[in-house]
């Protein structure tokens, strides 16, 4: 168990180091998400009540769409650097590779959210920096990184993968996006945990099911 965790962390640390040097992924997610949010401040006239209505939807649409960009890069880098075969040749089991990649993606998305949330709060004038929303954001990041890692591995060798990944990832993530939007909506309107417990359950169920399903299916994706 301890050795497995160490392997997962080593794999994730590799991606984090690469990211620290290039700053490709997190920067792409943050800038793209902020662009989406900014465009919406023009597209919708933001009266206080309207901010409450559309804000959570805009926030999570921005995170989901921007997240795809980052997920794309995580395997594209391996493919472009011809390191995918090297990764597959490492003497560790495929599920550990999956969890390593997933952990890396989870950290990228979470860091991006740490930047996105305060800016969103400033632009939309609604308070999303609360314990409840942070828990929701973590649950969403887990689900996004699980589904995203599996689909990124599936689409890495396809031509025009930049198009393919969003087409696979976004519809599959719809339940999670729904749960995140609805719970955030409840929180910014002053509701407490019990008011969105159904949605929380949905998000947790999504995470559990897709972490398992993605880990199992990932092995078939990286087979040669």
């Amino acid at each position: 168990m301890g050795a497995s965790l160490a392997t997962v962390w080593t794999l994730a640390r590799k991606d984090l180091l690469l990211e620290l040097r290039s700053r490709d992924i997190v920067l792409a997610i943050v800038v793209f998400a902020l662009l989406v949010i900014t465009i919406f401040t023009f597209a919708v006239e933001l009266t206080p009540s309207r901010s409450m209505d559309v804000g959570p939807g805009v926030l999570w649409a921005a995170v989901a769409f921007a997240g795809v960009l980052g997920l794309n890069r995580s395997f594209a880098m391996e493919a472009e650097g011809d390191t995918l075969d090297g990764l597959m040749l490492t003497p560790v089991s495929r599920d550990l590779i999956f969890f390593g990649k997933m952990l890396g993606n989870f950290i990228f998305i979470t860091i991006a959210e740490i930047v996105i949330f305060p800016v969103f709060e400033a632009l939309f004038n609604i308070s999303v920096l609360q314990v409840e929303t942070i828990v929701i954001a973590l649950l969403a990041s887990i689900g996004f990184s699980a589904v995203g890692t599996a689909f990124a591995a599936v689409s890495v060798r396809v031509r025009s993968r930049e198009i393919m990944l969003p087409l696979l990832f976004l519809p599959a993530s719809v339940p999670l996006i729904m749960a995140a939007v609805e719970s955030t909506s409840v929180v910014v309107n002053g509701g407490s945990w019990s008011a969105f417990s159904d949605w929380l359950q949905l998000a947790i169920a999504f995470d559990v099911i897709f972490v398992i399903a993605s880990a199992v299916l990932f092995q078939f994706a990286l087979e040669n």
Partner: protein
Amino acid sequence: MTALRNIRLVWLGLTAGLMALTLWMIFLWVPTEINQGNIQRSLYFHVPVAWTAMIAILLIAVASVAYLKTRDEKWDRLAVAGAETGIIFAALMLITGMVWAKPVWGVWWTGEAKLTTTLILFFIYVAYLMFRAYFPPGEQRRRLAAIIGVMGAVDTPIIYYGAQLWERAHPAAVVGPLSESDSSVDGPIGLTLMVATLTFSALFVYVASERYRLRKQEDEVTALRRTISLLPPRSASSTDVTSGVPVGGA
């Protein structure tokens, strides 16, 4: 081979006969529904195609798992046949549903759980087919497509549960004769629905099996071309044959 062909012909005849019977029942035999009028007749198409689209998802899921387990190409062909046929039926379901909803509910579309689920699943299987179209044929495509097939199937109940929660949180702005009451489906209406469902299931099986057969022939042609291209060229003229690209398709 001929036995199989005969079965197919008999099945085609059976489907055609059933279709004639169904059309007669829908347009001439079954009485007009009292609340909704003639538009209700579109439900005799809508419910059966919805049913077959569901069968298609099940077929893709089973065939995809079986492919990953056995690596037998026949399962992949079955999944493709299910997906391509299923997507047509799903599109028909969405269209017939909207045509019915506009006069009856007053809106083309609403956040009803089954509608939302269908639309999302429709997108997932469109992506499945696009993926197959983008990827060069071979073992890798079959394997990766099977992964998408299984992911979509795993997602189906979660999407449905989410859509139900969403429907509860956002009561639909539905106004119309059917917005409050459920219509009953017994008597001639129920019988017509049953016969229509049988007919469209038969149609689905026929179309999917034709697609399966075509797929098999495509694979055979691809294999033949590959064999030819491996032969040593005998003369300059024969190399033309070998330059052909492998057969693509979804």
